[in-house]
């Protein structure tokens, strides 16, 4: 079972409620035709299905046609059809219970509302069920405006994926704003100290305006420290020499800026990204922390631990402390 959920504002014409009265005055009959262009439809779920329906037609719009009967008390009954695109994809609807038409504060208009049940569908809506709430205004000059909120169920296989579960969190929900970013000018010694204190494997590097530049990790530091042993050996050196050179390089590199170790243009993530996607990136790239960047600005970082906490343990509130 798949679900489609949309809002749409329909505009059109109706026969005026006054002209439509029956001869005996006991009830009146109103004919409505209204349409909405595709951009007036706001899909909350199942957008792809609606888009597919509309794009497969020449007319990229939704049309509503209905016959409303009203008794003297303003009680409404309606039968109608919602047609998508050229019309082969349609829903047939009728009033569930009864609707009401009442006076509105605006003397030129009357206001009505009802719940429509979906009796059936054709084309890509074959087998549809569900309800549409209709909230409309009738103008005495014949202008008609109707707000439909539809919740439609279609038979289909993707029921599990669409089934409601716990809300899906995004990066913005878990990002760590205190991510101790550093400037490219800090020395390697400073960075080594900072890593020991924060226990972060990766630190983000920003410029003076807080714009994101890149990432530097403990692995990058180590790689700079490990000499090219092959060159040492080809030059007649030994493994012992390599061990000595390792510490000698430490002394040499300590006061140097980290700038040259910064990996520019690494994968960054945005506040809207899905946590599963972010976790995948980290596992695949063997990094434990990713920078969160929006429009070039550094917002914070997300670690694998942050994601584990968010998904497994967010209710106990430990992290807030």
């Amino acid at each position, binding site marked *: 079972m798949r679900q489609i959920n949309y809002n749409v504002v329909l505009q059109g014409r109706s026969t005026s409620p006054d002209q439509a009265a029956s001869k005996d005055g006991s009830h009146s009959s109103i004919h409505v035709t209204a349409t909405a262009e595709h951009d007036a439809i706001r899909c909350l779920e199942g957008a*792809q299905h609606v888009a597919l329906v509309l*794009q497969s037609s020449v007319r990229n719009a939704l049309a509503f046609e209905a016959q409303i009967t009203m008794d003297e008390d303003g009680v409404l009954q309606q039968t109608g059809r919602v047609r998508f695109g050229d019309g082969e994809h349609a829903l047939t609807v009728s009033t569930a219970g009864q609707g009401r038409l009442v006076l509105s504060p605006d003397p030129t208009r009357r206001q009505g509302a009802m719940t429509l049940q979906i009796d059936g569908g054709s084309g890509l809506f074959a087998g549809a069920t569900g309800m549409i709430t209709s909230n409309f205004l009738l103008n005495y000059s014949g202008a008609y405006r109707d707000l439909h909120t539809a919740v439609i169920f279609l038979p289909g*296989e*993707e029921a599990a*994926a669409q089934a409601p579960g716990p809300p899906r969190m995004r990066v913005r929900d878990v990002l760590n704003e205190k991510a101790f970013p550093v400037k*490219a000018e800090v020395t390697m010694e400073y960075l080594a100290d900072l890593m020991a204190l924060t226990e972060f494997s990766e630190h983000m590097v920003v410029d003076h305006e807080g714009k994101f*530049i*890149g990432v530097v990790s403990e692995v990058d530091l180590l790689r*700079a420290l490990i*000499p*090219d*042993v*092959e*060159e*040492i050996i*080809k*030059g007649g050196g030994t493994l012992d020499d390599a061990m000595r*050179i390792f510490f000698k*390089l430490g002394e040499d590199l300590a006061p*140097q800026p980290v*700038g*040259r170790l*910064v990996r*520019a243009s690494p*994968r*960054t993530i945005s506040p809207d990204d*899905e946590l*599963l*996607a972010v976790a*995948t*990136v980290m*596992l*695949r*790239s063997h990094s434990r922390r990713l920078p969160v960047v929006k429009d070039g600005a550094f917002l914070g970082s997300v670690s694998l631990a942050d994601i584990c906490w968010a998904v497994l343990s967010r209710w106990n509130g430990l992290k807030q402390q």
Partner: protein
Amino acid sequence: MDVSSSTQEAHGHASAAAIVAEVEASLPARGHAPEAFLSRSHGFLPIQPPLLALPPSHRVWDEAAAMLPELNSTQRTRDVLDRLPLLPADVASLEPGYLWRAGLMLGYLAHAHGNFSTTRVPLPSCIAVPWTEVNRRLGRAHPGLSMVDYCCYNWRLLDVAGARSVENMGLLVAWCNNEAERVFMTAATEMHARSGTLVDAAANLQDAVTRHDVGAAKVELLRVTGYVHDITFKSMLKIDPNPYSRTFTDPLVWTKAWVPYTATINDHERGLGGSGTPIIELLDAMFERSVHATSVAHETLRFREWMPSYPKRFIDSFRRISIVKFIAEAGDAELAGIYDGALDAYAGRRSFLSVHRLKVYGFMELGFKAGRTETNSGFSGQEADRAWDELDDTLDATRRERHAGKPHHCPVATRTALVKAADSQTSPITKVILDIAGQGIRYVPGDRLGVFPQNSAGLVDRTLAALRATDDASVRLTSAWRDALAPILREAPGVVPLRTFLAYAKLRPLGRAVGKALLHLSACRRLHELLEQRREDQVELWDALELLAGDNYDVRRLWKAAPWEAESIARIVPPENFRIYSISSTPEAHGGEHCPRELHLTVGRLSFESQPAAGRPAMVREGTASGYLVRGEAAVEQPTRIPVRVFRPGHFQLPEDPATPIVMFAGGTGISPFRGFLQARAADRRSGPAWLFIGTRTFSDLPYTGELREWVAGGQLELRVAFSREPKRLRNERGDFVAVPGASGYVDALLEDDADSAAIWRLLNGRDAGGAEGCFYICGQASFAHTVIKALKQVIAHRVPDAGGDRGAITEQLFRQLVARGRLMLDVFTTFAPSGARTAERFERFDASEVVEHNNPDRGYWIIIRGNVYDMTEFMYLHPGGERLLVSTAGMDGTASYEKAEHHLDSGVHALLDLYKIGSIRRLDFRDVWNIAVEPNGDPPLLSLDLHEFYRRWIRALYRVVEIENSLHNNLSLRHCPLVEAEAPEAMSKLKARVLLESHDVFHRGGFREVLAIRLQTLWNGALGICDHATSITKLPDAIAAALSSERARRAEAWTAKMWTRLKDLSADAAEDPAGWSRFEHDLERIAKADLGFIAGMKAALRDGLVAFEQHEHRLPELGRDALIGALERVPPLVERYHGELLHDDA
């Protein structure tokens, strides 16, 4: 007697000379001893040609062998061979003189039987028994075909008085006896036929070494070099994949029809391979090869047990002496240089082994693409893995093994004079005179000289300043730098002055790799911009260093760092390369005792104004090598001692017969090699006519006027000159050149002259058409070559007799023949044109979706190399690898093959290619868009996929489909090729039918499945990951699996499988069952059509998807979903249609 040689004999080791003498003195009856062949006159070939027949008692083997091509064609090999009578081959029944012929015939019969199909059956005893006996009597432990059988005994002369050359030899026995088999095998025989020189020189050389006779050693080493050059450039190049060549060897016919028979049929045999020949064995022994680490080398060692005893004893005698040691002790620079030249001719970068490797590469690439899955030496793999690349790497490693333990040596030339060759002020042309006496350098006109340049003192100073270094700073070298400088400095120093380092370093232009390395170290923003704009070729290293210094990067670290630190400049900046110049002199004019004393180059000075980039101003920048050769100012050290190396081009020599007329076209300094040609021709009375067409800017730019005048006056030269910037023409007034008013123009205008055009036409035409059959040469920049080629085609088009055909087509045909027969030779050079220059912007930007459509004769053949698009439709016929090779990589990215062939290192090929460049590939903007996608069996089974990577996967899959389409086209074209002797091209035979059916099987088992299984799954998962998280991941694989396992699919497969039984049951002769044959042929065509149709459908679908990438770029996730998913969902119906098409008539 010399001590060492007496020691040898005391140990029972005869010298090479003694072994040859002994063999020559004991020639048996018929001249063919079981120990094989060895003589100073005929090398490893028998002096008396191989026997043409066995005695009447064994004639049945001859008769069976003669039938092999026909049995192959009618696929009756095993039926007929199984019924041969069992004949005895013992001493009483078969004289020893017949053993070689009997061994060869039985070997071919055995292979024909054993390799008839992939189903192994034991050899029938009528072959196995005598074959074993004959081999035993030949001294072999096991029955088998040896390299001596293949190369030294399987030939007969067509004209018995003629030469032992490819053109004059046929095969004694053949499986197909098509041109591919004949040319391939006789070329190998021709190399052995020349080996008399090698055997004689080698024996004399060994003698000279034992006698410590330096002078004689020089003479013999030079003869060895000459022999190696001959087999490289004369014999091997006859194996020519160009269809217009006289010795055309179709690589596909070779692979499909012939190669399968060379496979070993027992565990003891070694496959056909060059390294088992006596030639390679002898050269390896002489050059003291000591390393045998590669798999090819292991094979070489195993080959040794198959070497017959005479050649083996001869070769082994060289393993007991050391020429290297002798040279070291002699301390003679010329001898060392001559040795270096010989080793270089055999195993250098442009050597016998390199040319061989390139040829193997082309044949293997095509072979594997056509469905070959392993080589005789055990390389195996599928087409998609480019298994031939691995073979190629191994061959190159094997070549380099020959250099292990050899001394570092690079000849040095001394610049003795600079002479102005033309009066021009604006673009001076200089004759550079180099003294090469005592260096052991030899050359012929047309050869090129590699010059290892030094940077100017000015540039080195600027770079030193940019490095914030003082004059006495030094730098520690990496091992790669030590190896590069060792032959030049004659030592391998660990530390050199920074000035010396910079003198030999590649400082200009910056180069992308160096720029990226510096950016990686510094994260310098302006350098980043420069690289982003691809302006790195507008600046030099010091510009970049200034940018770094301006960004507070400590540039001193670069030269202070040790070679094991990332910042070491020696790790970042590579050494310069040899720069190549055409030699402008002839050695005869400067003869020394062994080698010429002098060598001339013609050098135009190159400078250009760079464009401003990353804040660096526009400035005049100079060419490194030309500046080095002609500048007066002092270079950094030893300004006149120049490391050099001679390179021999594949095709740019004077004709062997000096009477052959030559026609030369020179653009400016392109006169360089022609001056050498003209000197050589002027010195030889037998010389035929010579024409020189030369284009210069003005009269004063015309170089070598004095010499030209003399040659014209002596009637040795017809000279025609065009001035492009001066409305003048050249007139010869009583032996003096004067410029008189006329029209300015380029060289092509000269060919519009009616009399000259008629003369050129006569020279273009072959002798069979009443022409003079001259040799044509073009030397100049690529655009010049292009102009001349166009003008020559116009002459042909204008003059070709109207035979009622398509003039354009006839012109192309004649022109392609001219190239293929080696009568049009090019020496094209490129002057440095930075990509930022205006010319580069003329080119169009293409999308890959357009390129993939160009892999057929209707749309032409395009290829992408390093991001540029080339139209190869015409170039295919100039390419030495042949048109098939280019067809196989058309419509896709050919960079991998191009770089494997090392064309990018060969400025000549590079320049030539420039002619066919039509644009470059548009770079798409994918921003930073990414998502996750399912990856079955991944850990985790999800991967993060950025849009750019997804695009790469998509395009790679599409290229793979194009490649499969190309292979299908190549394979199906065999329908129109004769596969065995005397077969009409269009005739259908059982063999041809089998090859075509195999081709379908290869496609169906290989490409078809591969694309459907792995490739599509990857694309589908990627498309869902990037665009659509709601659709089921198994939807497409399920649909494809359903299409593949449907009832229809099963019936289609059964139907195609039945084709094999139908083929078996068909009559051998089509005339016996014309209806059956016609039905069968019709069905074969249907299969071909279905295969092509399916792959065309796949290509169209994937191309439509590609268009979505190109159209939407980074907005693909929102806008491209339907296009991508739609493209992939077209595939299951394609599979259904494919099976439907196969079943068409049976349905």
